[in-house]
């Protein structure tokens, strides 16, 4: 692997490439990588995409990106303040093209659990909750999921609770990109620094299209240069557990 990029850069660039020019893109809470990706896309191939931030801004121009994506500084430079009630109204009426959403667990049928494992009243594991995902996944035209970690406890055969399900287009991880095809997750591409055995070991279900899937094109020098300009403080790395950064 080229020393000039690792999983954070690969993920940020891969997520940016999924944004199409002209789209209205929503970036919610707890979403550093999507914030970097959407900001990057507007500087590269999607200058006419619109970034709607849960911080309250439309195409905000803050001094710098920070790790908290609900920060009201993400309304700086915006000509209006767009609050949470406005956003959920817009997505409900079909006005959002692409939404990025996180996940605690996802299964091979692309169902997401971000709620809990075990008994509801006294769960073995409590997750943060899905935020707006249960409403957004069926309503946003397209949803891109991401998780800065990839293990058999995250990518499971069957989730014990379905927090949300719906219009998932891609799932981007430090190892690969999945797409949803006929209701099932299928390997879309494998990141250039990942051997297929590692992906198999890290995933809790049999991976469809494992052998035929291409490698994700590595970030170009141009993409990396722009990424460093958009995100000089490395917000793209904040979600990664240390082991993911060192294992690459």
């Amino acid at each position, binding site marked *: 692997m080229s020393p000039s990029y690792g999983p954070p850069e690969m993920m940020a660039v891969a997520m940016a490439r999924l944004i199409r020019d002209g789209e209205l893109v929503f970036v919610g*809470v*707890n979403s*550093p990588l999507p914030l970097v990706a959407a900001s990057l896309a507007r500087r590269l191939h999607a200058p006419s995409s619109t970034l709607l931030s*849960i*911080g*309250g801004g439309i195409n905000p121009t803050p001094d710098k990106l*920070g*790790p*908290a*994506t*609900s*920060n*009201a*500084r993400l*309304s700086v430079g915006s000509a209006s*303040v*767009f*609050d*949470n*009630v406005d956003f*959920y109204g817009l*997505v*409900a*009426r079909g006005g959002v093209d692409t939404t990025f959403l996180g996940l605690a667990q996802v299964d091979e049928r692309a*169902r997401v659990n*971000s*709620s*809990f494992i075990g008994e*509801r*009243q*006294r*769960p*073995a*594991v*409590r*997750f*943060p*909750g*899905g*935020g*707006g*995902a*249960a*409403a*957004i*996944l*069926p*309503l946003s035209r397209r949803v891109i999921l991401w998780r800065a970690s990839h293990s058999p406890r995250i990518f499971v055969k069957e989730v014990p*609770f*379905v*927090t*949300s*399900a*719906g219009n998932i287009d891609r799932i981007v991880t430090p190892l690969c990109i999945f797409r949803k095809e006929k209701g099932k997750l299928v390997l879309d591409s494998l990141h250039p620094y990942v051997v297929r055995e590692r992906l198999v070991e890290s995933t809790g279900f049999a991976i469809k299209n494992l052998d035929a899937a291409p490698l994700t094109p590595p970030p170009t020098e141009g993409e990396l240069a722009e990424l460093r300009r958009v995100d000089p403080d490395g917000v793209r790395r*904040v*979600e990664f557990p240390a082991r993911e950064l060192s294992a690459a």
Partner: protein
Amino acid sequence: MSVPQPQLEFPLESVSTNRTEVAPGSNVVLKDFQRELVHREELYIWAATRAPLDLVTARSRRRWTSPGESAGLLASAGLFRGGERSMNKQLALEDAARLITDGQVITIGGTLCQRVPAAFVREMARQGVRDLELVKPSPGYDIDLLAAAGCVRRIRSGIVSLEQPFGMAPNFRRAVEEGRLEVIENACPTIMASLQGASFGVPFQPVAGLEGSDIPKVSGFGKVADPFTGKEVYVVPAIRPDWAIIHVNEADVRGNARIYGSPVWDRLMSRAAKRCILTAEKILPTEHFAAQPELTVIPEVFVEAVVPARGGAWPTSSYPEYDVDEDAMWSYLERLSEHDGLARYLEESKSHDRSGIEVAA
């Protein structure tokens, strides 16, 4: 742990006594900013009466009432809050927090670690209120601390997080996994809809989306046929919290308030709850709000109490005054992982929290 102290905007002379006098027109604040003062003609009246006087005054002294006298004087001046509604709703933090009683349903403004009325949350924990139900789409620092303090028995939420770089709310998580705190699973917009139902005065509210989710089933949502088209839609019950507690940038003593940056859910919360308690970075004259009424996010008719609370969102942010204090957030997490850490944390932050008083110009 570093605790920011409020900055005074005018020179003050310190007085420490049980009885003193101040001149009309002088700037008067209480040392440690603990108490409300009401200026009426030549009297300064101690309106909240639960601690020894410890004054800071400017210039000369006039007459100062005793705690016992103040209620009567306030009543004769039409300012006492026990009877008819006063236009001056200022209360000290401790007194406003006493409005919240065991078993009530509350909603708290801000989101995650942004513009949370954190001083008020800590004061509730200090006072040991119990069995609250918190209704909030996106709690963070507030529920983490209240869960650690055992104040909340049930929460309805969409997502609970301290956000990056802190991640999940560990004290919330522990309380839920130990069975001390029940989560009624929601999505952010289903809480929003429950509050909208309350704000509109209707018994339930339709919500778009949710298809394929287990949330409606485990949380008791309904599904009804649209009487006009026959199409089915999910519905959630209206929820009217007893209190909305909201941190704002600016308020007047009547409870008109501005929020800079996104109001997040707070505009809706103020309309949905039975009554609203504001904590405010700045108390400003009503004329400031009347000059541009379209900037007032929360009108006085919803508001019961206004707490002067400069720095009242710390260690969460209050845009544009201050950002999340990351060092203080890490200190908080470290403190609460220690034995008796919560009690020490609440003690260490007490003078900061109770120091927010300002007298309106």
